């Protein structure tokens, strides 16, 4: 049914395209479009983020051969672990055409829970790995509430999750008393410090999160329903998809991934403070979008996001290796976002650019 839905849409856009071609096509959209056409259009575009990643790696490696040292690749993987886990959750929400702004709030709640329940220097608790479980449950619960608020109170996801962001942040500020609490549980810290086949455990956890997300997206009904809702919610509803249930499940699932990311972040930094999530929302959204998942929903997926996260992480690593001044690094990142989206989005097919 999903297939019929999107096919139906495509047929509708085709006749409009010839009209908009004359009115809206500019040189800038025309040339890359034609080049893309030569290489087989759509397929080329879906590979664009991967091409960007490869070109980026090659350029950095030429400029500084240290980049391809094993030690450095491990570091890149390590700094990609938290953003990847976060972005996995966010991908499902964006695929659905919604947005989850609660990333930072949920992450800080989860990091707060794990630190306060495991051995720490703020109170006498020492529940070991139960703390990790509790943190992931807390993350999932936050997502579940976002889902309920959105579907039951009919509040758009933007506002619902914005609210959850601040609720989560406030909660962790209150519980942590505004200070940074150290995580002293050695076995949880091992997530960042212990290595298995040369990679920190956090990287393996993130890889596990990616595989889980891939299975959910490509091999379960939930994954297909999320995509269907993102493609066209009305069509999905008419096809018998229980939209409300899928939405709530998707938000809970995102919360689950944010919860894992919170545990990883706390393990890496060895402490938790309320602002542990600062800047993570923007990084996660950037990674998802750069990977080629459309903010309008229905297009892209977790594999795209994996590539997006790697592009962002490799770029950050590369800019340091190349010695690019900190004063212009953000500018380069901005250019990168525009370039990646320009390459991966088929702008000829856009009827309206908002």
């Amino acid at each position, binding site marked *: 049914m999903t297939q019929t839905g999107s096919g139906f849409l495509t047929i509708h856009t085709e006749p409009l395209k010839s009209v908009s071609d004359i009115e809206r096509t500019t040189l800038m959209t025309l040339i890359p479009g034609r080049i893309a056409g030569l290489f087989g259009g759509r397929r080329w575009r879906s590979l664009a983020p991967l091409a960007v990643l490869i070109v980026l790696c090659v350029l950095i490696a030429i400029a500084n051969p*240290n980049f391809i040292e094993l030690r450095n690749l491990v570091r890149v993987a390590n*700094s990609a672990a938290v953003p990847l886990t976060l972005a996995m959750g966010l991908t499902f929400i964006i695929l659905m055409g919604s947005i989850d702004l609660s990333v930072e709030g949920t992450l800080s709640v989860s990091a707060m829970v794990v630190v306060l329940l495991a051995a720490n220097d703020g109170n006498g608790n020492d529940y070991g790995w139960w703390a990790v479980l509790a943190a992931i449950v807390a993350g999932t619960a936050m997502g579940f509430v976002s889902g309920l608020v959105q579907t039951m109170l009919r509040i758009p996801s933007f506002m619902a999750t914005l609210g959850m962001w601040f609720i989560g942040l406030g909660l962790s500020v209150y519980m942590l008393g*505004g200070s940074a609490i150290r995580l002293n549980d050695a076995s949880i810290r091992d997530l*960042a410090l212990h290595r298995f086949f040369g990679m920190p455990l956090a990287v393996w956890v993130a890889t596990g999160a990616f595989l889980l997300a891939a299975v959910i997206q490509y091999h379960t009904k939930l994954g297909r329903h999320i995509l269907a809702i993102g493609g066209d919610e009305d069509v999905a509803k008419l096809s018998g998809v229980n939209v409300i249930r899928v939405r709530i499940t998707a938000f809970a699932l995102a919360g689950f991934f944010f919860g894992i990311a919170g545990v990883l972040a706390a393990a890496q930094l060895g402490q938790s403070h309320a602002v542990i999530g600062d800047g993570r929302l923007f990084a996660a959204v950037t990674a998802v979008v750069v990977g080629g998942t459309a903010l309008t929903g229905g297009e892209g997926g977790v594999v795209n996001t994996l590539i997006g996260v790697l592009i962002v992480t490799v770029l950050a690593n590369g800019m340091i290796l190349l010695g690019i001044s900190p004063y212009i690094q953000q500018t380069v990142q901005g250019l990168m976002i525009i370039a990646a989206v320009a390459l991966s989005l088929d702008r000829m097919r856009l009827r309206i650019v908002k």
Partner: protein
Amino acid sequence: MKDRTISTRSGTVSRRTLMMGATAGLATLAMPRVLRAQDKPTLVTSIRSLSNPYHAVWKTGAEAYAKWAGLEHVTLVSEGNSEKGIADIKAMLAKTGGNMVLNSDPNDTPDARPIVEACAKAGAYVVTQWNKPADLHPKDFNPNYVSHIEFDGIASGKTIAEILFKTIGGKGGIVALGGLISTTAAIERKKGLDAALAANPDIKLLDFQVANWKSTEAFDLMGNLLTRFGDDIKGIWAANDDMGSGALEALRAENLAGKVPIVGVDGIKTAVDAVRTGEFACTVTSDPFWQGGMGLAIGYNAKIGKFDPVKEPPEHREFYGKAVLISHDNVEEYYKTNVDAKPEIDWNDLWGRVTGAIRT
């Protein structure tokens, strides 16, 4: 049909919420009378947020002074929002009828002017810290604008750099992590580092990077710097402790913690602990406990006429406070008096930590 039921119900809820909100609002309106009834001034602390350790300690210091002096104390939090910060202060001025003493860490430099003007108009006494425009002076608002306190960022940046250089034996490469580029503290501390570097030609600054005051950013950045410079990094200079602790965890992940010394500014607990274990070479703190309490003490003493601001010398009106250095030599002592116990400060010693007038 189903949709309509839901929206109607949520309509009722919002009306009820409105009623509850209105009741709560009326209750708040009733409060100023209680506050106005008292003759003693209310002490008011205005800070950026409670989510950072620095301002959390600031608040404890303020409460300690209020308890010592036996006065009412209220904390206003701007959450990084200048408008909210100023509006809250104006609301407090209205509530207390100007019978208050304000100790403020303005959210942003320009905020100090409207805050001071509002206080002067209402007759309240105000002390500002860290942020004020260069052309705003306490002497222009006698007697209400009592003092402005800052800490010399250049001196801090230089002191910790010198200790770092000494720890690594006077030669070798270091990397530096700077704060948010546009802030005064970041600029001044870097100036201090540059001055120390100029005096020590055998020390090489391998790279200066910006981690925006955050441990998370410093963590990722440090990993990348290790790739670029590897074992050439002998020491790490961080413009604040939070970034220093992020760098420390990145070192720990590579089994380098304790082998590459780190220095920072602020004296947060993680850093003090790290000084004890030898992973940090030192940290320097402006002592937020003192800032929170003494700012109120100076304002209160002016208000009750213990001293006349007009007659005080310039270095009591705009001054640099004395920063406290925590290094290997004194960390145990510091831990005993400041971490295990609440610090004991002589609140009558108003000018004991004045190190000089602020550079213009």
